């Protein structure tokens, strides 16, 4: 078993745990680059104007300076159209990438060897129910990815984990920040999320609630335990 691993909570420092997290990280980087370029250009222009056009000693007002009741017309409306077109094309690029990742996150693969777990949020904790009715509270055990377990092989755990998330009482939100997985746990409804973990280990308090659900909200934690397929299977059958 790998040593206990913790997310230090700073972006960029998280070693990828799963494809969902890796892809999220690269999408985030893409957005950051776009944001830095665009906002950077705007700020440069902003500060340049502020510095360049500051009042010089003894300077006269510009000719068209506003005075009470009068504001001259000014400006080139075509600029707005150009700006709109630029932004739309930028968003188009960003959005295509977003939609690709979204489609990945939203649609679990059709994998006969996936592990299905029912996740039930309650005030205040998480209950995990496995297909053989084994139940855990405060701890989610899953098998690590197993690349030899393809759909044509039977009776193995591929590492795909599909969660059916609901709530027994109020609105909770089930999140595993290290995997960049999150889905609301809503009473009377079932929401799906899925992931594959690529790194085994005991991830203490890796699971959190992300919607205020009462006084115990901060304590609504669970551990994530990623095991090798074999040891997971042992546990699955025997409970130890």
């Amino acid at each position, binding site marked *: 078993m790998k040593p206990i691993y913790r997310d230090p909570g700073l972006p960029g420092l998280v070693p990828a745990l799963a494809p969902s997290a890796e892809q*999220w990280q690269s*999408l985030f980087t893409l957005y950051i680059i776009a944001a830095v370029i665009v906002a950077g250009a705007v700020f440069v222009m*902003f500060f340049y104007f502020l510095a360049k056009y500051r009042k010089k000693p003894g300077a006269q007002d510009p000719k068209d300076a506003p*005075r009470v009741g009068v504001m001259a017309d000014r400006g080139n409306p075509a600029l*707005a159209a150009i700006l709109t077109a630029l932004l739309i094309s930028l968003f188009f690029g960003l959005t295509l990438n977003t939609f690709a990742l*979204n489609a990945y996150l939203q649609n679990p693969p059709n994998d006969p060897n996936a592990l299905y777990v029912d996740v039930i949020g309650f005030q205040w904790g998480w209950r995990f129910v496995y297909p053989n009715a084994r139940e855990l509270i405060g701890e989610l055990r899953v098998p690590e990815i197993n690349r030899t377990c393809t759909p044509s092989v039977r009776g193995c755990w591929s590492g795909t984990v599909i969660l059916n998330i609901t709530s027994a009482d*109020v609105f909770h939100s089930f999140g595993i920040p290290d995997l960049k997985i999150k889905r*609301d746990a809503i009473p009377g*409804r079932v929401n799906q999320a899925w992931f594959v973990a690529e790194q085994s280990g005991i991830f203490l308090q890796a699971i959190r609630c992300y919607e205020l659900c009462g006084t115990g909200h901060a304590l609504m934690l669970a551990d994530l335990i990623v095991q090798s397929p074999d040891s997971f299977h042992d546990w699955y059958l025997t409970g130890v």
Partner: protein
Amino acid sequence: MVDWHPLKRWLFTTNHKDVGILYLFTSLYFFVAAGLLALTFRTQLAFPSNTFLQPDEYNQAVTTHGLLMLLWVLTPLGAAFANYFVPIQIGARDMAFPRLNALSYWVYLSSGLLALSSFFAAGGTADWGWTTYAPLNTVEFSPQVGGSMMGLALMLLMASSIVSTVNFLVTIFRLRAPGMSLMRLPLFTWGWIFTSLLMLWAFPSFVSALSLLIADRTFGTVFFTSPQGGSLLWDHMFWFFGHPEVYVLLLPGFAIVGDLFSTFSRRPIYAKKIVIPCFAIASILSFTVWAHHMFMTGISQSLLEAFNVTTELISIPFAIIVIAYILTLRGGSIRFTTPMLFAVGSLGLFIIGGVTGVFNSSVALDTAFRGTFWVVGHFHYTIVGGGLTGLFAGLYYWFPKITGRMYNERLGKIHFAIYMIGFNLLYFPMHLLYDMPRRIFTYDASTGWGPLNLLITIGGFTFGISQLIMFANLLWSARRGPQASQDPWGGYSLEWGVPSPPPEFNFPEGVPVVSAEGITYRPVAAANGGHAMANGGHAYAGHGVESSEEHWSRWPIVTAAGAGIALWGVLMGLPALILGTAVLAVSFVGWGYESLRGRETIEAIGEKWPFDRLENLSLGMWLFIFGEIAFFGTLFGAYVFLRMNSPLSGFAWPQPGSVHNIFWGGFNTIILLTSGLTMVFALMFARQGSYRGLQGSLVATFALGAFFMVNKACEWKDLFASGFTFSTNPASSIYYVLTGVHGAHVVAGLTALTYLMVKALKARSTMEAGASVEIFGIYWGMVDAVWVFLFPLLYLL
């Protein structure tokens, strides 16, 4: 100003400038209260596993902080400036309905006191976060009476805002000075137009959501406890209001920034003709993005993508405005006095908030951000960075106009420097905590979140302390500051053309007439036979408030007190309820009596486009109905939602005819429609000048309306007897709420009818009553029309 006793002036004033000052002090008071609350929970979070606050205290502090800041601080601070300056900026001598304006303020205050008092109720106040998610907000999980009290306080506040909204829109559209075309209005007035329109459409939706919540909490309906409604019904209703609401918070400050960029750089606003449509587009789009707050709720992939795109689209008009503001500076001669510094700060911070907003708009990235401190960082950059900083710019900018004295420039600059440092220390690190859930009262040291949280808390205290500098500066300067000139900045809006502070009726030299060359004042006597008033403040002919003697009323404060006490009594006991209702009743009689003496409104004197044909009162009524459409529309939406989700957990919606008696329902429909007909007769007789015909039709309308209510009561009684109660199922819950609020509208109509009958009786003629009959007719027509939708929905489908 006439020599009134200060108590009379401040309690009874209907002068828009006094009302503005009342708003200013009250909103800053709530700002301090809500800020102190924030410091308590920031103290709690400063260190891992801290025990400064208990969990329930933490949750109440967070909730109250959010609600107070959003609803009792930011919008009212904007309203303070709007009250003081919008009438002057359009060239009017007061609001269209000065008494209603005072009423809005006093109801705002009383709702705020109700909200604060909920803190002291047993079990404390609301503790579910400002978003009030269901079903945590129901009695099963949050039984404390303080939660319901907060709900009622919110309703009361919404009522105040809706009245104020109607008043402002009528004022701006109907009372502009000659030559003051819409395009000549300053950005601040434009910003307030859009703020008002957003409020008029969004706030009634919130009232319907709150109605369902309060019905659940006090009458046991099952909207948010049943799976058919539940979490998602609240989410949709809340965010349909919630997203426009965040623009309500932003626009006033954001608009001020535009005016200030122009004034302090001495250049015209760049592409003002594009900026204003951009405000309009953003306002309209703001009603199409609400589900971006629900990306994790399990809505379908195609809807996710649709809301992703609308959310991105909405950032385009904002981007254009930002660029236009920046280009305004070009070729200017920028003066960096305190108002301009805050305006610059506001725009800079808003850009950062807008950029993180685009991150949130990505459904995939939002998987990580939803419910974390990243989102908290985002919206504080927009609302506090963009909105509040802009309003503070306005506070410094208008301070000399309001007080006639100058603030201390050096202290202003020091305030700005500490404000910016504190702000960024406080909110920037939140983005780095994008794994940390928001609203947690504690966290473990092993998370590694400790140092950033400590930094945030330090930033919070810095930010808080910087405000003390402003308060000290302004309070001291208001008394001791050097005399300010009429126009210290070279402003372009009309308030800079009148003395500081402006006289009671704003324009001492006559009616302002605006043209491309500038502003002239049409002398007093020339105004179509108008008569000069001795107090020199009044230069307008017409009806309505003529002089200082009529520029006050004791009823707004009484009504507000009655409403506050009555609502408090709903939860705290019959004596208060009876007292409050009695006070309300007395105040209504008082209002009616005052109205009979003809003090409704300030008359139009100049530009009225595009509402030249409507009287102030009818425009007001139509705007009100616009809000009512949002109110009932959202309730219908709730009905549709419940019905569409009724198969969840195997509930079968009752078949038509199985519960409700179609015959009686149809009969009642005919009664109500007939009363609509008699109302048409009333209007006809009023136009013809037949007093007896008018009075007869009014009585008939009243009788039919009352009969409708009696029938309704019998129906309710039978349904209850047959076991179909508030809490039977979602179908019964929505039936009672829909017919209940409709019935309340009928009862309100009957009250107004009583007033009309008295008015007609007193006048013994139709002349005076005519206009009021028409306005009431519009209202009554709406009540009928709503029923025309309700009947098939509830009885036939």
